[in-house]
Structures are given as C-alpha cells and as structure tokens.
C-alpha cells in the first residue's frame, strides 16, 4: 500500500494535495485496492459548492457503489474528465489521477485531517 507523505488524508480514504488556496482531491491507493476494479466515477459540476464531509460524487467498482466525501469545504474549479472514459486510471495510480480540484473555503479545516504517517497507521488498524 502506497501512502505519500506530502498529502493530507481522511478516514474515508480521500487525499488532499494543497497548492496555495486550491487543492486536488482523490482517493488513496488503499481505497482503490479495497474497491477493486473501478468502472465509473460520478463527478460534480464546476462551481458546485460543498461543505467538509459532504458527498461530492461516487466511485463504482464492479460490485459496489461508494460515496466520495469532501475532506475540506470548497468550490469545484476543475474535474478530471479523463475519468469519465477511463475510470480504471484510479486503479493504475490513485495519486496521479486526482478526481476534483477545489478552491478551499477555510484552509484551517486541513488541521482536522490525517498526515501521511497517521493515515498509514490508521489503515494498518483497518486491516
């Protein structure tokens, strides 16, 4: 299981990569592995606004449907349209293939998230 140390994580297995006031959001390598073959990613619309912990989309594997939750509140400024035709990219590299890019509402919400090390320990417990 791959965990990148320069990202923030949630207990729902999303990751956040911060670039100034903006952030890329995706799901972790652990999540893609647990889900199995991903066949569909439902993306939000540009300009949609979400609070932290609100569902912004879903990933569907062959067998199951899982909600995606906002690690921090924000406005959608970009979605990864490549995933519409090639959702399996998330299985290939869960960190390279981000899902949404947001403008964060309140950067201090990042303090609530897990560091790479904390996330690694959390996943080890889940096993």
């Amino acid at each position: 299981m791959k965990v990148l140390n320069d990202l923030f994580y949630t207990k729902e297995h999303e990751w956040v990569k911060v670039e100034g006031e903006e952030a890329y959001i995706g799901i972790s390598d652990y999540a893609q592995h647990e889900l199995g073959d991903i066949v569909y990613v439902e993306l939000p619309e540009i300009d949609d606004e979400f609070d932290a912990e609100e569902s912004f989309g879903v990933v569907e594997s062959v067998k199951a449907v899982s909600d995606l939750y906002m690690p921090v509140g924000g406005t959608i400024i970009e979605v990864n349209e490549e995933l519409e035709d090639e959702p399996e990219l998330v299985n290939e590299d869960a960190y390279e293939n981000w899902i949404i890019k947001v403008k964060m509402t309140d950067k201090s919400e990042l303090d609530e998230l897990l560091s790479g090390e904390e996330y690694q320990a959390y996943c080890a417990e889940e096993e």
Partner: protein
Amino acid sequence: MENVQKTALYNAHKELGGKIIDFAGWALPVQYEGIISEHEAVRNNAGLFDVSHMGEVEIAGKDAFEFIQRLITNDISKLKDNQISYSPICYEDGGIVDDLLVYKYNHERFLLVVNASNTQKDYEWMLKNVNNYDLELKNLSDEYSQLALQGPKAQEILQKLTDTDLSTIKFFYFNPEVRIQDIKCIVSRTGYTGEDGFEIYCANGDIEKLWESILAAGKDDGLKPAGLGARDTLRFEASLPLYGNEIDKDITPLEAGLGYFVKLDKDDFIGKEVLEKQKQEGLKRKLVGFEMQKGIPRHGYTILKEGNPIGKVTTGYLSPTLKKNIGLALIEEKYSAMGQEIEVQIRKKVFPARIVKKGFYKRAK
C-alpha cells in the same frame, strides 16, 4: 470475521492473495487479482472456483423418486441414471424455497445440490415434507468439498489429470467415479457461468491437492483462480438466477421466467395449485432484462415508468464481457414488452432504460 465457516481451502485462498469476505456465513474470496481479469479468464480460457459452501443432501430409499417429484417443480420422470435436472422448489404459496440440481444415481438414490445460504432451511423443508415416504435424508454438506472449473479450456485442462474420457460426460450428466490424480471425485458437466465446464465434488481432505493439481495443470492455458465476484458477474451475463435476487420466497418461478422448469402437467407437487392459478390468470410481475446508456443499475434500485415505481432491479452491472450497463428487474407485467422505455432511479437522478432480451451473453457453440 467471527462466526463464519471456513472451507478446507481457506489457507490456500489467503496464500493466493484472495480478498476474503463473509458470504452467507462462509469466509470466501470475492476476488484474487481482480473481478474483471478473473471474469475474462473464464470467458476466454478457464477459471477455478471454490464452491465448497454449496450444500449437498442425499436422498435414498424406495420412495426417493416420488418424494423428489413432489418436492420440485420440474419433472424428473424421464431423467436417466447419471443425468442431472435443474429445478426450483416451492412453498405451498408458490414462493421459491430454493433452486437446486438433482443428481440421479438411480431410481432410489439422488444427490440434491442446494445454495449455501439455504442449506439448513432446505434440509428442514425436506424433513417436514417426508411424511410417509420411505427414504433416508442425509445432509452431507460438511463432508463434500466442491470446485467449479469453468471456461472453454476446462475440459482440456482437467483431461490432463484423469484417465476418464471427459468427453463422455455430456451437458447436465455426471460420472460419480472419476479419479483425478488418484482422488475419487464426482464430476458433472454443469456450472453457473454460461461457459462449458465441470463441477467436481470430493472429500474435504482431498480438496487442497485437487485445487493445486488443477491450477498447476492449467498454468499454461490461462487458468486463473476466480472468486465470488466473477462468479456473480458471469452468472448474471448468462441470466442465471441467484436466490435473494431474481428468486426469493415471495417470487414465484413463473414470475422469475423459470416456467420451463415448472411442469404443471405432472402429478401433484408443492405449490402446483397456486402456480396453475397464476398461469391461468396471467402474471402481474415479470422478470425482464434491460439496458441503459448511462448509469450502472444495482440490486434494489427502483424501476419507474413515467415517474411511477413499477418494480426493482434484481441484479445489474456494467457487463465485463459486453461493456454495457445492463440489468435484470422484476417489474409490473404490463410494462414488460420488449423495447419498452422505462427508467431507473440512481441516487437522486432518473436515467432512461429500455427492455431487452434476457440471456445477455450466449457462448458460441
């Protein structure tokens, strides 16, 4: 995972990287390397499944035949020795207790293979209906392990391990005395994938050797171990019903499209009266196939017609073989005509769908 039963292959699954889940009280692998690749292995080459969780009930005695004829909706009066019949079994009200395979050794000895989740319930239902029939019922589920070797290369692979000419075992027949690497097995040409293949029964103590021998024999033929995930996508593409989805205690075999296996012209059987009436009066619900351009249908989603609920999805997938979003649904009969436009509620949105023929996948013969 507490309180789950393990098959004799539990450790073998762990070693192969199987992702173990609780399925009907059994710890079994949902997948090894991935559902899609395992699914494709079965369609193109072969896959090996541990299906030891399936239940086996032996019925032996003078009245075995008469008892089974009354128990099942299908007619086994013309079944030959070593032949197999598929049938639902029903409650008096026509709802389905289970679906099963009847293996006929001879007129006085049969083996019934039932669903894991229903084994105890079925056994009790059979006991309850023994009445004055002269026979003995034995639940042998804990003694048998079972593998399913499925796919176009199944025969070629298994033939490497046995002197029995497997081509002599025809579709829905079995040979009760096949030796595979010196292991005594029952081998039938049956399966739950829509492909050619075999189901192989042996004693629990022999299964690990059998599993490893078959995997080794198929190594260069593209054989892969396959889990419950692929088992479900495969059976779904072939429109084979699953208890709890397409069939259930409040669904009759006629509604589920299994009329072919309900022989209303044979003597009395459990549920006959209700099913006869249902056939005369016409069905109110029917199992249909449907296809959609967008949105993946899932078990339990609501089917609508112009916004009004008319039924539920029983199983749906993005079909790995056909690459289409397809499903099976139990809906009001009046909307079930081929080509009808319906809708599927997926989360907060409603997506259009169209009724198509069931049996989405048929292998080339």
